């Protein structure tokens, strides 16, 4: 219990230390004018906001697509869809995120932005939630479904009150993985003008500005760890009681 609790709080603490340390080091040193144009509160916050927004939108798309698809693929009348959906999601994950992103950008021919980044990144992050929704619903004891129908619950009643709650732990675990994928790949957002911490990394690398590069990397990594931790918190709080 205590060991678990230490592990639980170690993650955000480490994030705080790393990000705090890096920021303290950067802002206590003297910055050149070029560095200052990137390393200031307003542009860092802007990068954070872009990055988070991308992550949230991607995750929302993933949930809105993968969970209903997973539900459909486990209904008796649509079981044959499960392998089809999984194959599509597999392609999404197997294809390099950056490649899909840029291809989509070229295909839309638009000027980029949040939505051009979000769709291919969602495609890339789809698989964990989809697979876990399918597996989570499939592993619900059929006798519970039978009992539910047998005492007079409707098919949708059984889905919402029995199958879905019992599949929640796995769905949330999948969601956590998808969240981490989304926050990681959101670093590519800069290539389609969607901003994010990728912008800092890119600028730092191209202009050989070590401090900008380190800050961008540290913030991106810190945010990923933090999002993963939020995922863990969600798993703990929203998992059904009575199972543990």
């Amino acid at each position, binding site marked *: 219990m205590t060991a678990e609790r230490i592990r639980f709080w170690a993650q955000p603490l480490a994030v705080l230390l790393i990000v705090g340390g890096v920021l303290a080091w950067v802002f206590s040193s003297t910055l050149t004018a070029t560095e200052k144009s990137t390393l200031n509160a307003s542009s860092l916050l802007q990068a954070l906001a872009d990055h988070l927004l991308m992550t949230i939108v991607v995750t929302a798309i993933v949930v809105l697509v993968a969970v209903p698809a997973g539900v459909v693929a486990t209904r008796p009348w649509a079981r044959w869809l499960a392998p089809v959906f999984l194959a599509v999601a597999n392609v999404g994950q197997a294809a390099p995120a950056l490649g899909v992103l840029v291809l989509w950008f070229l295909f839309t021919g638009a000027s980029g932005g949040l939505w051009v980044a979000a769709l291919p990144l969602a495609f890339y992050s789809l698989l964990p939630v989809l697979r876990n929704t399918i597996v989570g619903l499939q592993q619900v004891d059929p*006798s*519970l479904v*039978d*009992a*539910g*129908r*047998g*005492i*007079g*619950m*409707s098919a949708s*009643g059984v889905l919402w*009150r*029995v199958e879905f*709650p*019992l599949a929640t732990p796995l769905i949330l675990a999948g969601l956590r993985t998808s969240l981490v994928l989304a926050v990681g790949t959101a670093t590519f957002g800069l290539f389609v003008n969607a901003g994010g911490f990728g912008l800092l990394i890119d600028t730092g690398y191209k202009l050989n500005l070590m401090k900008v590069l380190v800050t961008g990397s540290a913030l991106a990594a810190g945010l990923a760890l933090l999002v993963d931790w939020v995922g863990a918190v969600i798993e703990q709080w929203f998992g*059904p*009681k*009575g*199972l543990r």
Partner: protein
Amino acid sequence: MAEKGSEIRLDHVTKRYPGQKVAAVDDFSMVVPAGQIVVFVGPSGCGKTTTMRMINRLIEPTSGTITIGGEDALRIDPDELRRRVGYAIQQAGLFPHFTVAQNIGVVPGLLGWDKKKVDARVEEMMDLVGLDPGEFAGRFPRQLSGGQQQRVGVARALAADPPVLLMDEPFGAVDPITRGHLQDELLRLQGELHKTIVFVTHDFDEAVKLGDRIAVLGDRSTILQYDTPDAILANPADDTVAGFVGAGASLKALTLLRVRDVELGTAVTARVDAQPSTVDIDGERFVLVLDQRDRPLRWVHQNELRHASSLAGIGRPVQDSVTLQSTLRDALEAMVNEGGRAIVTGSRGEYVGTLDLTTVTEVVQRLRASA
């Protein structure tokens, strides 16, 4: 708790799965009398569960009619129908993420009872199946023993006071001792509630214990015999039924009869404070010595009696006795322990008579002849 059982009538019911040559259930007709327990018993895969599940339409019959209390079950919306038919299954089928109270309250909730009424009902049901609401209402199924889970399962099935109860091997997954207790409790409940119960099992002993009537089913759910337990035990319809009844049918039949149902013999008795010389042996070899309150103490042989100055402390202590409520099988066991006659005692433990092997064999023969 008012609703008593309704009659279930199955008429030429057939279930044929697409693509299969033989029907799973072939032309099944039966009347399940109101307020009785009818046990479907038969080997695995004989279609007994399929037949039962057609009553609440978890499986739709291919043809035939089913009525419950005169109402055509096939015309009612299946979900509505199932809310009116209790359903209990093996390993209880409790929802692991619902508390005990939530599990029991599901069907009343589906029927739209208000929360207060549901709560009161849940409490009543928990009392009925012997679970303290204060202690168990908030627990999750995982925190209960197998027997307690089955009790909750039965409580959930009864919660909306359905006239009909379907039970699919509900006690199949608990240990034999707990199973015995659960069976006793079901019989006690049935004594109060008088539901119509269809009970599926593959355990013939369970069928004998619980059933008012037993339907022995063969392949495709054909009825090999549908009769009272003692009639089936005494007179199996054919070799298949006899095989299913199994060895020891006569002994099983004895579990159905109580000592009070047969004629008792008498022994020569004497109070422990009587003078040995005054005891009239009346041609018997043994005298049964009773205490001041007529409770049996010892068997004294006539030879011992002749030389004794007091009845206290002589003879062989009584090892085992049975009451009027005991089964004849218990009586037989007492005879084996005693090495002869079994002593029968009344409610206060007083001597009321004896039972010997001849009486028991006569009863068995009479059962055979009459069935």
